[in-house]
């Protein structure tokens, strides 16, 4: 993607960042489960 203005830069980077944030929202609870699933043993 060609970026010419700051507006385009932020549209591009924020779009990517929102996708990563979505992935983190899925990943972190799964990681928490992985970390704690043997806690009751």
């Amino acid at each position, binding site marked *: 993607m060609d970026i010419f203005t700051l507006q385009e830069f932020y549209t*591009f980077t*924020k779009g990517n*960042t929102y996708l990563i*944030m979505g992935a*983190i929202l899925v990943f*972190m609870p799964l990681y*928490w489960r*992985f*970390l704690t699933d043997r806690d009751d043993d």
Partner: protein
Amino acid sequence: MKQIVDQIKEKIMEKQVPETSWFSPFNVVTGIILGIGLILTILRFTMGLETVTNLDNNTPWGIWIGFDLLCGVALAAGGYVTSATCYIFGLKRYHSAVRPAILTAFLGYALVVLALHYDVGRPWRLPYPVFYSQGTSSLLFEVGLCVFLYLSVLFIEYSPAALEWLGFKKARNIIIRLTLVLTIFGVILSTLHQSSLGALFMIVPSKLHPLWYSSYLPVYFFISSMFAGMSMVIFEGSLAHRFLHHKMDQTHLDESLGVALGFSKAASLVMMGYVCIKLLGLSLDNNWHYLTTGWGIWYLVELVGFVIFPALLFAAAHREKNLTFARIAALWTILGIVLNRFNISIIAFNYHLPADQRYFPSLMEIGTSIFIVTLGVVIYRFICTRMPILHEHPDYKSH
């Protein structure tokens, strides 16, 4: 007053361990390091910075800032992390870790201030920002004020151990009543200055490599200080187990496994969170293309090798109840923190300069840093063998 001084003198001279030879390997090695350190100190303060350092106008901050200060402050974070865990979050099963962590933090900050005397050109002016000329718009003022206040807080938090040892019951009981207030104060001050140390580097967007430069540096520094502190508590606990086992009481021995595994779990989660926000930082600044360069590989070594790997090792330690994994991960994380602070303050700093103009510390600078760390170890050992740090004083109930 004379009576108090005599009591302190008598306590210090009291034999705490059976008579052994002065020429033990520990004493010989530390003696040599301290001797060399004293010579370097005389050189530094009589001949000036130029004699002992490779600092120049391109790199005015070398390893005395990158290691002694940045790493010292980050690794001393165990104090606020452990006391907040115990007194604010109410997890009393970690109580036995509080005093060693507070002592480490107190000595860590005291040595940071000592190291700063070597690094600044006119050390006698160190109190100026606090007492004489407050530069309230400066981040360094904020860092200086917080370190000054937090060192005072840590001294008060540590003092009950010394007062119990000296037998000053009344003073000890007054300070114990302040525990919660001091803990809250400590967390606030740590939040402020841990992040401000990162914020200091926001003034050099053109000097620091874009992979390490970010407007989120304060957040990175603060969050990384949390798992640095937890790792230090685990690492220092394992060292105490190995070398000061005879000074630990049954409570400390029984709780040590729980402390290590509990802190492993917390550190693992925080480290994964740290990785996530680092990715967000990369994305917001659109720095992905740097990852395929040599600097990018070095960045990935730091992030994958020294954050993700120990985070997974901490997770394995907690899941498998494996203390060895926890200890290895703690040491690995500490090395990772040192690497991160070195990358920001030295390695990726002035990255565009030709190799012959880049800073590399002189042997005397490295020697001075080793001297300061050794001094910390000797004082820690001196206090732990005398005062109730790894055991509870029989005359006082647990608070």
